[in-house]
């Protein structure tokens, strides 16, 4: 009997405090998916500028041959930290932020399935980020052996190694817990009638991404743990004299690292798949083929990792297998690009800022995809390996790919989040500055790479000077253009034209049925879908 009374008490308590908390404790202790989504997005935005500042240091140094601003040791720290910050601190948290905000609203759930865990997934990040950044101020500086942390080089790091490894452990924990939460939310919290094959593409891509995270983040944790014990406890995992193999680390790292690039790009695909139909005023073309293509990409991403290692001296059979399987990925990816294009075909198109970013994504991500196919060819990769060609390739898929998708998604959903329209004119200026400068920044790097300029060097031969100068100019324009984004977001949060519930012209999805800004708790009663 007492338990029943207590049950009502607990339940009543749950319904009494409906609004957000006050002051700092609201953000520290929140279990609300929208608050946590906002925290993720703000954290990602801060990290974007920290990682971006590092990129600008790199590009300033590379503006002309010779050593200008930084010494080579610090340059190496910048390349390593820029990557670690951008991958683990910026782009992944940004997409988890989108997932937090949008998935419960898209599937008609009251919140994420495990709200306390959700808070924890986020609040690990600032601690991990601080530990990682603090290494820059240590004896010997931050990690400088590249974000891939290959032994034996990385084992020669200064005091930073243990800190960097523990930071990666924490970041990995955050990702795994976040992924578990997303899977459980999608599998258990859908409104009645929201069958799996009615879910918005963004939910689908995140569901598959979450599975990838659970599969590969623990493997990275294991790999960096082996680095730790090799350095501090005398194990021989990566030491040939003890019967280990440094190449083993590369296999472990890329077993994580290759799915990781799809962990970054699949949610981008999801966002693009929401934006393009909305501004084409047509449903997404080939919905089920999109779902299968996403699953296909995810599966293939787990069996292609050694294409990052064509030059380490694998047996021929290995080179062949990883070459063929890698090229297969082009097929499901092409299905997606085809479907987006077909969605726009004969659509009633309009080009608001989110759509501009989405269309730019389509073109520029495709460039990154094509250079990926080039490098998948093992004998050709022997030429491109560790040159600026690979730098151009992965920045094309990460910047005008993933980052453009994130920015486009932010413009797309900002009115829903804030209740205000962003400044369309400034948004368009931001887009054109970004789209033009990102190409000035990264396209010349293809030429540099094909001409033989190696990556991760602070100084270079004079024949590479011209394109490096062009690239650096693009970098600074691109970097400072992003300040506009901050201005537009802040302006939109503070005020602006009132957004309707629909925001756009009759877009599909449950999130457009609730008022803008979305109330603190959406779908206390699950909506009935169709």
């Amino acid at each position, binding site marked *: 009997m007492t*338990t*029943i009374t*207590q*049950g009502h008490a*607990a*339940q009543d308590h*749950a319904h009494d405090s409906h609004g957000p908390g006050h002051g700092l404790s609201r953000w*520290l*202790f*929140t*279990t609300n998916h929208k608050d946590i989504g906002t925290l993720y997005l703000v954290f990602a935005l801060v990290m974007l500028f920290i990682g971006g500042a590092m990129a600008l240091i790199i590009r300033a140094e590379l503006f002309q041959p010779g050593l200008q601003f930084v010494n080579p040791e610090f340059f190496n720290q910048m390349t390593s930290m820029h990557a670690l910050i951008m991958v683990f601190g910026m782009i992944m948290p940004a997409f988890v932020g989108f997932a937090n905000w949008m998935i419960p609203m898209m599937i008609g*759930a*009251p*919140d994420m*399935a495990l*709200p*306390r*865990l959700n*808070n*924890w997934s986020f*609040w690990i990040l600032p*601690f991990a980020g601080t*530990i990682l950044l603090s290494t820059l101020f240590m004896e010997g500086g931050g990690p400088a052996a590249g974000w891939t942390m290959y032994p034996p080089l990385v084992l020669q790091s200064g005091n930073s190694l243990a*800190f960097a490894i*523990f*930071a990666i452990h*924490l970041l990995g*924990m955050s990702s795994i817990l976040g*992924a*578990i*939460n997303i*899977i*459980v939310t999608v*599998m*258990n*919290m859908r409104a009645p009638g929201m069958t799996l094959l009615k879910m918005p593409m963004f939910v689908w891509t995140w569901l598959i991404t979450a599975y990838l995270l*659970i*599969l*590969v*983040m*623990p*493997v990275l*944790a294991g790999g960096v743990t*082996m680095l*730790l*014990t090799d350095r501090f*406890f005398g*194990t*021989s*995992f990566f*030491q*040939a004299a*003890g*019967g*280990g*193999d440094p190449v*083993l680390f590369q*296999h*472990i790292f890329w077993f994580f690292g290759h799915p990781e690039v799809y962990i970054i790009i699949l949610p981008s695909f999801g966002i693009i798949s929401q934006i393009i139909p909305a501004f084409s005023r047509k449903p997404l073309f080939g919905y089920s083929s999109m779902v299968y293509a996403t699953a296909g990409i995810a599966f293939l991403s787990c069996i292609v990792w050694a294409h990052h290692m064509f030059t380490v*001296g694998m047996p021929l059979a290995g080179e062949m297998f990883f070459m063929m399987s890698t090229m297969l990925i082009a097929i499901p990816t092409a299905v997606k690009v085809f479907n987006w294009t077909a969605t726009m075909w004969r659509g009633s198109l309009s080009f608001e800022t989110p759509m501009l970013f989405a269309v730019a994504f389509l073109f520029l991500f495709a460039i990154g995809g094509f250079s990926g196919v080039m490098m998948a060819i093992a004998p050709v990769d022997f030429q491109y390996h560790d040159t600026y060609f690979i730098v151009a390739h992965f920045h094309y898929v990460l910047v005008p790919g993933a980052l453009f998708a994130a920015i486009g998604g932010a413009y797309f959903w900002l009115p829903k989040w804030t209740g205000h329209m962003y400044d369309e004119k400034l948004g368009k200026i931001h887009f054109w500055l970004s789209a033009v400068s990102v190409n000035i920044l990264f396209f010349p790097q293809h030429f540099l790479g094909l001409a033989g300029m190696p990556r991760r060097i602070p100084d270079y031969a004079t024949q590479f000077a011209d394109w490096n100068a062009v690239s650096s100019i693009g970098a600074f324009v691109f970097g400072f253009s992003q300040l506009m984004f901050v201005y537009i977001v802040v302006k939109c949060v503070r005020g602006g034209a009132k957004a309707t519930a629909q925001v756009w012209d009759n877009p599909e999805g449950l999130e457009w049925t609730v008022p803008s800004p979305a109330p603190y708790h959406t779908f206390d009663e699950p909506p009935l879908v169709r």
Partner: protein
Amino acid sequence: MAHTQDKYYVPHGTRWPVFASMGLAVTFVGVALLLNGSSTLPVILTGTAIVLVVVFRWFADVVNESEAGAYGAQVDRSFRMGMIWFILSEVMFFACFFAALLYARQLALPWLGGIGSDPLTNSLLWPEFVPSWPSNGPGHIGGEYESMPAWGIPALNTAILLTSGVTLTIAHHALKDSRRGLLAVFLALTVLLGFAFLGFQVYEYSHAYSELNLKLSSGIYGSTFFMLTGFHGLHVTIGAIMLSVMLLRVLRGHFTPTRHFAFEATAWYWHFVDVVWLGLFIFVYWL
């Protein structure tokens, strides 16, 4: 009671996660400083204490809410799914170390012995090296050692863990049949078997270090042996603590024949630890 299960329970605000993160960060920073040569044991202990207090209080909140009937069937399902996917992430963590073991045995050591398409490492660096298992590599890192035989303590520990799986299942069935006495006895037996396993493991480690000269630094054999069995032992410890908590909750009258997620989750975890051990017994000790 049925009424309380209509709506999904969303807790409003929680203090524990931030403090958990803080505790973890303090612990990790302490360990990192220790590894770099500072004496930061107090920092580590402080961090660990924070984590332990938070874990205790956080779980206490959840247990109280659960006993108060705040969780409906849907929340129960969320917990179940969450636990399953958490265990999968643990499986992948162990898979990483098993992969390292198989890679070293099947690829790295034969290549160091000159087998395969690239015999140069062997002929230039270690022409006399003949690969075999167990091995501490061509450099004989860590010096002479003896490997751990499978058919002593490891076989006994296998029997102990397998038996504990059986006793736990009996306890589970007793819970479902409302036979609380039988439940308590067999759950207590499972806890005892778990700690017995750990006791033997500790003995095995001291035997390895003091008599076999088998150490973490004994080349790739020592590395894989201690990292795999060590992480497994850590998980057995966690599982045994979880079982002990379940035992205390059973003695306090928690759980009903139909609603006992925490018990089942612990059982899943215990079986996972059990299966990992079978892999260890076969690939680390036996083959």
